[in-house]
C-alpha cells in the first residue's frame, strides 16, 4: 500500500512537472469570440431550477458553484475558497471567496448560498441531491454551514458543475415562482465568469466576459456565441468548414468517425465521466411474464453479442459498459460477470427456466420498445439475436418520446432500449434505477420493477458512508449483485464526444465537460 502511495506521489509529481512545462510552452491568449453550439433549445438558463445538458452549458458560465472538479475527480476551490466536512459528516462548512460579486455588482454572500440551496431543494428535478439538507446557517457573510440529517457524501459532487448554481437572492427572491421566473431567460444576473447578452429562443445564446469575475484575469474569452442547431449533420458541416469552433455531446458514430478524419479538428471522448451516460437493454424484472425470471434475463444477456454493438453499431466510438456505474467513475467495478456471447449457455438457462423449445423452434414471445429513432438499430439487432435462442421479439415503435415514456413509467413493456445518465454521484443518477422504493415512478425511475433487499440495504448505507474506501466497497458489492441479476443489460457508454478546432486552447475536458465553467478556455 505504501509503495502504491509512493508510486502515486511520484507519478503525480511527474505529471505536475509535465503540465507546468506544457503551460509554460503555451500561454493562454486573452480575447476573442468562441462560436459553439447547443443541440437543442434550453427551456431556460437557470440551472437551479432546470437540469439537462443544454441548460448546463450556458448555465455553468452564468452561475458559479461552490466547487469545481479536475479531471481526476478531485474537488477544487471555486466560489468556496475552502471547505470542511465535520467528523460526524453532519456539517459542511463553505468559506466563500471574499470580494466576489454578482453581475450587477451586489456582493455574493452566504445568505445567497442559503437561498440557492432552498430554491434547488424545492425546484430542481433531482431531489436526492439535497434531500438530507435540513438547514443552512450563515454565521457571517462569507461562511455558510450546511446542516445534514445524515452524512451525505454525494453532496460534494452536487456542489459542482451545473448542479448547484449560486443565484442572487435579491433577484430571484422577489416572490415570483423560481421555475417560471422571467429572469431565467432574460436579464439574468449570475455569479459566473460570463454574463448574458441575449438569449433568443431557438436561435442563440450570447454571453460576454464578466470583468469583475472573482478569479482575477479570467475568463480568457471576451465573448461566447452558442448557436442552437438541432440537426447533427448541419452541426458537423459547420464544424468542418470552421463556422463552429467547438461542439460537445456529439454522439452519432458516423459523424464522430467522419470528423476524426478532418484536418484541424480534434475529436475526444473525454469530459463526460460525471455526466456518465449509459446505453442499456432494460428488462421488466417485476413482470409476471418470462422477464420476471432471473434465468431468462441472464439468457438474454448471453445471447446478445456486445462486441457486435460496439464494433458494428457504435463503429468503435463507444467504450464498453459492464455495470450500472459509468466506466470513468471512481466507483466503477470492472470485475463482474460480463456475459460474453454464449448461445449454449443461453439455451440451457432458458430450458432450466422452464421454457423449452416448441415444435416451431420458438420458446416464447416478447416485445421491445424504444423511445427515439437513433436506437432502432440496437433494437433490431436484439430482435435478430434473440431469435437464435428461440425468443420471438416484436418491435413496438413509439410515435414519440412521451408515448414511450408513458409505457416505461407504467412498466408496460418486456424489453426496451434506454439511455440513462449517472449525473455525478451514484446517489443522484444510479440509485434511482435499482432501489425498490423508486419502482414505477415515471420514466428513468426503477422502471424494471427490480427488487433486492440487499441492494436496497447497500444503497442506503452507501448514501451515507463518509469513508471513500468503504463506500467504494459497498458500490462494488452492489455492482456484483446487479450484474448477476441483470435487471438491465449494460452494453456501452453513450459515445459523447467533444469536437474542437485547433484554434481552441484548453477545451473543457474535465469530468463535467461543458457543464462546467470554461473560464480557462481560450482562442489561439
Amino acid at each position, binding site marked *: 500500500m505504501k509503495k502504491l502511495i509512493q508510486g502515486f506521489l511520484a507519478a503525480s509529481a511527474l505529471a505536475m512537472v509535465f503540465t507546468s512545462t506544457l503551460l509554460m510552452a503555451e500561454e493562454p491568449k486573452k480575447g476573442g*469570440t468562441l*462560436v459553439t453550439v447547443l443541440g*437543442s*433549445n434550453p*427551456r*431556460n438558463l437557470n440551472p437551479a431550477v*432546470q*437540469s*439537462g*445538458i*443544454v*441548460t448546463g452549458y450556458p448555465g455553468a458560465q452564468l452561475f458559479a458553484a461552490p466547487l469545481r472538479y479536475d479531471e481526476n475527480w478531485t474537488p477544487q476551490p471555486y466560489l468556496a475558497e475552502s471547505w470542511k466536512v465535520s467528523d460526524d459528516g453532519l456539517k459542511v462548512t463553505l468559506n466563500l471567496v471574499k470580494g466576489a460579486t454578482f453581475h450587477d455588482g451586489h456582493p455574493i454572500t452566504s445568505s445567497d448560498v442559503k437561498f440557492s440551496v432552498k430554491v434547488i431543494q424545492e425546484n430542481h*428535478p*433531482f*431531489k*436526492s441531491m439535497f434531500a438530507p439538507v435540513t438547514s443552512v446557517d450563515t454565521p457571517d457573510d462569507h461562511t455558510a454551514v450546511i446542516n445534514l440529517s445524515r452524512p451525505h457524501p454525494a453532496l460534494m459532487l452536487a456542489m459542482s458543475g451545473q448542479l448547484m448554481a449560486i443565484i442572487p437572492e435579491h433577484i430571484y427572491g422577489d416572490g415570483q415562482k423560481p*421555475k*417560471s421566473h422571467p429572469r*431565467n*431567460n432574460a436579464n439574468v444576473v449570475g455569479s459566473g465568469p460570463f454574463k448574458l447578452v441575449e438569449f*433568443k*429562443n*431557438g*436561435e*442563440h445564446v*450570447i454571453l460576454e466576459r464578466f470583468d469583475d469575475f472573482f478569479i482575477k484575469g479570467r475568463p480568457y474569452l471576451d465573448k461566447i*456565441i452558442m*448557436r*442552437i*442547431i*438541432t*440537426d447533427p*449533420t*448541419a*452541426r458537423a*458541416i*459547420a464544424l*468542418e*468548414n470552421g*463556422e463552429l469552433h467547438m461542439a460537445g455531446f456529439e454522439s452519432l458514430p458516423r459523424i464522430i468517425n467522419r470528423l476524426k478524419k478532418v484536418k484541424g479538428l480534434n475529436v475526444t471522448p473525454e469530459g463526460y465521466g460525471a455526466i456518465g451516460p449509459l446505453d442499456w437493454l432494460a428488462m421488466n424484472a417485476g413482470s409476471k411474464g418470462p422477464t420476471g425470471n432471473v434465468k431468462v434475463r441472464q439468457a438474454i444477456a448471453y445471447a446478445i453479442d456486445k462486441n457486435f454493438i460496439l464494433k458494428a453499431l457504435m463503429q468503435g466510438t463507444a467504450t464498453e459498459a459492464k455495470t450500472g456505474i459509468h466506466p470513468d467513475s471512481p466507483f466503477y467495478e470492472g470485475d463482474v460477470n460480463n456475459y460474453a456471447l454464449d448461445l449454449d449457455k443461453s439455451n440451457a438457462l432458458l430450458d432450466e427456466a422452464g421454457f423449452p423449445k416448441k415444435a416451431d423452434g420458438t420458446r416464447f414471445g416478447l416485445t421491445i420498445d424504444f423511445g427515439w429513432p437513433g436506437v432502432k438499430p440496437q433494437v433490431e439487432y436484439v430482435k435478430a439475436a434473440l431469435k437464435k435462442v428461440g425468443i420471438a421479439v416484436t418491435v413496438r415503435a413509439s*410515435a*414519440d*418520446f*412521451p*408515448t*414511450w*415514456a*408513458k*409505457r416505461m*413509467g407504467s412498466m408496460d413493456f418486456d424489453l426496451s432500449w434506454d439511455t*440513462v*445518465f449517472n*449525473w455525478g454521484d451514484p446517489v443522484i*443518477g444510479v440509485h*434511482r434505477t435499482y432501489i425498490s422504493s423508486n419502482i414505477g*415512478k*415515471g*420514466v*428513468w*425511475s426503477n422502471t424494471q420493477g427490480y427488487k433486492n433487499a440487499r441492494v436496497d440495504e447497500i444503497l442506503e448505507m452507501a448514501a451515507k458512508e463518509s469513508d471513500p474506501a468503504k463506500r467504494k466497497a459497498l458500490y462494488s458489492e452492489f455492482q456484483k449483485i446487479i450484474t448477476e441479476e441483470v435487471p438491465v443489460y449494460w452494453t456501452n457508454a453513450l459515445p459523447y464526444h467533444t469536437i474542437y478546432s485547433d484554434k481552441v486552447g484548453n477545451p473543457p475536458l474535465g469530468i463535467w465537460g461543458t457543464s462546467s465553467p470554461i473560464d480557462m478556455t481560450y482562442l489561439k
Partner: protein
Amino acid sequence: MAFLKAVITRTLYAALLLAAVLVLNFSMMHLAPGDVADTISQSMGGADAAVLEEIRKDYGLDQPFLVQLGSYFNKVLHFDLGYSFFYNTSVTGLIMQKLPATLLLVVTAQVLALFVGIVLGVYSARNPNGLSSHFVSILALFGYSAPVFWTGILLLIGFSLNVHWFPVAGMYDLTVEGGFFVKLWDLIRHMVLPVITLSSIFLALYSRLCRATMMEVLGSDYIRTAKAKGLSEREIVYKHALKNSLSPVITLAGLQFSAVISGAVLVETVFSWPGLGTLAFQSIIARDTPTILGILFFSALVVIVGNLLTDLALRFVDPRIGRKG
C-alpha cells in the same frame, strides 16, 4: 356585390373550419399517451415522480379533458393562444418572433419558383423537342422527386463544405459587424441555399404546368390569327399566349401555399432557419400542445388568406372570372 357575398360566406366557412381544426387537433394531442411533462423531464435528464406531478399541475394537465378544451377555446376567442410549456413564454409572442423569418423564406422561394418556373416553361414550350427542353423536363422531374432534406444537405455539402461560398446554418452570422449593407449581404448569403432548396419542388410544378398550358395555347386558333396578322413572335408569346396560360399556374401557386409552409418545416430544420417550421417541428417533438395548436391555427389562417389572394389575382389575370353570365 356578389363578390362581397362570396367573401362573407367564405369567411364564415373558414371560421367554422378553423374551430373544427382546433377541436380535432386538441383531441388528437390529448389522445396520444404521455404529455409535455415527460419531454420536460427528458430535457432535464430525468425527474422525480413528485416533480412530474407538479409540472402537470402547473400547466393544468391534471384537469379533465373538457375543462382543458373549454379553457383553451375561451383563450383563443380572446385572441390569446396561450402559454408555451416548453419555451416558457407566450405562444403569440413566439409565433410573431418566428413569423418574419418564415415569411421571408417562403415568399422569396415562391416568387423565385414562379418566375423561373414560368420562364423555363415558356422556353421549353416554344421548342418542345429541343435538347434544352428535355433538360428542363429532367431538371423539373428531379426537383419534384428529390426529398427536400436531401436536396438541402446535398447543396450544403457542395456549396458550404467543398467550396465555402455559403454558410451552413442560421439566418445571420453573429460575428459579422458592420452597417446595414454588410448585414444585408450576410442575410442574402444565408438565404441562397434554403431558398433554392425550397423553391426546387415548386419550380418543377410550375415549369411543367406552364409548359403544358403554353403549348396548348400556342396551338389555338387566335394565335394563328395573330401570326397571320404579322405580329412579332415576341408579342405573340408574351402578350397573347402567356396571359392566357398563366391562370392555371396562379391557381396552383395559391393552392401550393400550404405546401410551401409544410416544406418549410423540413428546409428550416436542415438549415437551422429560425422560423415557424423549426418551431413547429420542435414543439411537436416536445408535445408542447399550446404551441402546436397556435402554429396550426396560424397556418390555417395563412392558407385561407393565401386562397383569397389567389382568387383576387385570378380575377385580375382573367377578367371573365366572377363576371355574371
